[in-house]
């Protein structure tokens, strides 16, 4: 290695660390603030002098927060499962079959992503209100599904495209049906992508705020991001509790990532399919 490339390596390392710090610092700060007594939160030091779990005890003692947690879990899980169940056949069909209008359908699915989410917000809210479905978790589930599905379909299509057709043909010659080949050959090969798509859909629904805000007003169907907002209570406001709420919202994303780390990273570096 020569001087120049070593210098470049060092510069790149420094930039990476700086960017990481910039991204991670607020998150670390939230986490630390959530285990500090309120009096200490505004101190400059990042190292907590006193540790308390009162904020968490506090937040989990609130009925409205627990309801919101339950709602978010239900909506997120259903959205994740349905996204996977719908996106797999959709992506498979777009990738493997030829039929009239296939490419146009593929384009339409992609085209939905060209509009910013806020642009479709108003029509969606109007439609759901006029269906009388405002303030229901069902409505929220459907809108979240619609939000995530297009990307999910295209992500999976990319992975299915990368699985050589000959593998399925070999399976068909070995005696399976086309659907059997999909289940026995293609799906196992794209499993990391399926896990990634499910995780993505869950995280998307879990953290979604604007649609929830527009569709939901009554307390018993609020989701976590909305509940977090109600923590800014003008009479008994505590930064510590808000931070604890933030940690609770961030937790599943981190847990999911740790749980499926191998799958997700495997999905990002998916080789090993060819040959």
């Amino acid at each position: 290695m020569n001087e120049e490339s070593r210098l470049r390596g060092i510069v790149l390392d420094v930039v990476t660390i700086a960017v990481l710090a910039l991204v991670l610092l607020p998150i670390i700060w939230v986490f630390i603030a959530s285990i500090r007594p309120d009096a200490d939160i505004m101190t400059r030091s990042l190292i907590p002098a006193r540790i308390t779990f009162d904020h968490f005890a506090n937040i989990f003692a609130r009925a409205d927060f627990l309801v919101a947690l339950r709602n978010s879990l239900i909506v997120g899980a259903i959205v994740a499962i349905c996204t996977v169940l719908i996106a797999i056949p959709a992506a498979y069909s777009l990738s493997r079959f030829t039929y009239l209008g296939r490419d146009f359908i593929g384009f339409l699915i992609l085209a939905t992503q060209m509009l910013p989410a806020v642009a479709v917000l108003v029509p969606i809210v109007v439609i759901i209100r006029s269906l009388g479905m405002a303030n229901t978790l069902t409505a929220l589930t459907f809108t979240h599904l619609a939000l995530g599905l297009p990307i999910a379909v295209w992500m999976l299509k990319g992975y299915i495209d990368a699985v050589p057709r000959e593998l399925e043909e070999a399976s068909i010659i070995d005696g399976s049906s086309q659907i059997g080949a999909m289940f026995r050959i293609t799906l196992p090969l794209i499993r990391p992508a399926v896990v990634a798509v499910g995780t993505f859909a869950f995280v998307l629904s879990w953290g979604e705020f604007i649609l929830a805000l527009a569709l939901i007003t009554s307390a018993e169907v609020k989701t976590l991001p909305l509940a977090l907002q109600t923590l800014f209570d003008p009479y008994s406001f505590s930064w510590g509790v808000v931070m604890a709420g933030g940690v609770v919202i961030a937790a599943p994303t981190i847990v999911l990532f740790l749980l499926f780390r191998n799958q997700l990273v495997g999905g990002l570096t998916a080789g090993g399919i060819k040959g």
Partner: protein
Amino acid sequence: MSDIKVTNLRKNFGAVEVLKDINLDIRSGEFVIFVGPSGCGKSTLLRCISGLERISGGALEIGGRVVNNVPASKRGIAMVFQSYALYPHMSVRENMAYSMKLRRAPKTEIEVRVADAARKLQLAPYLDRYPRELSGGQRQRVAIGRAIVRDPQVFLFDEPLSNLDAALRVATRLEIARLKESLPQTTMVYVTHDQVEAMTLADRIVVLNAGRVEQVGTPEELYERPQSLFVAGFIGSPKMNLLKAEDGTTTGIRPEDINLGSGPHRGKVAYVEYLGADSYAFLDIGQDELLTVRQTRSETPQVGDVVSYDYPVERVHRFDAQGMRVN
């Protein structure tokens, strides 16, 4: 019984007719090889037989049964793909057992058959490896093993050796020849670009050209009596010398049938290719193309020599202006 009968088979991709009126009779237990230039439809014909492609017209029978509408999975065939198409997420053992598992064969029978095929192909030490952990030649043998385990009526190969290096290709070719001996009941259809593979392995060769069958015959028939100019030029390496006359007819003579040293004809040696056991001399005889002469090592002429040559008249192939054989 596993004879294959192809009658007036046609295959279109959209508006393009890729196979035109193909008629073939492949006997039970026969080893038939499809050869032809790239894009002539060899793979497509093989895939039509396998059932991976639907045929657009005509009839296809396997073992006396019309299989036009029988799916690939029910045709009793096995296929070895050019890319091997091994299942990456399964071990060698699982790859080979896959078809029997689909058939819900008893576990013990699966084990016996896999072990049998593995022994035949010297794959026993690799049964628990994954395809990515194998060399190209080993992958190829697994692909063949996977096909053997199925105990198919018909065995299809699409250029199975083309991804192997020269030495491995020779070794695997011998293995396929042995495989053919050990499965005398199984009909085999094999696609290749390689002349040597075709000549050494085939009971009969089918020469395809632009979606049509040019000629069907034993390697000897094709070599000794090509029925058309196309076959004459395609079979044999180095190529047959084809000398065009004024009236559009063509005279063909194989490079090894020309004797240098004496005779009524004369040519100047333009260059010489030395191959060890023999060598090719290219003579300028005042035509567009050089005349190729195959010589044994001891008789190699020098570049620039003017030599006389002759050929036995009974070794000459004559073709009319339409390119069809006349003698």
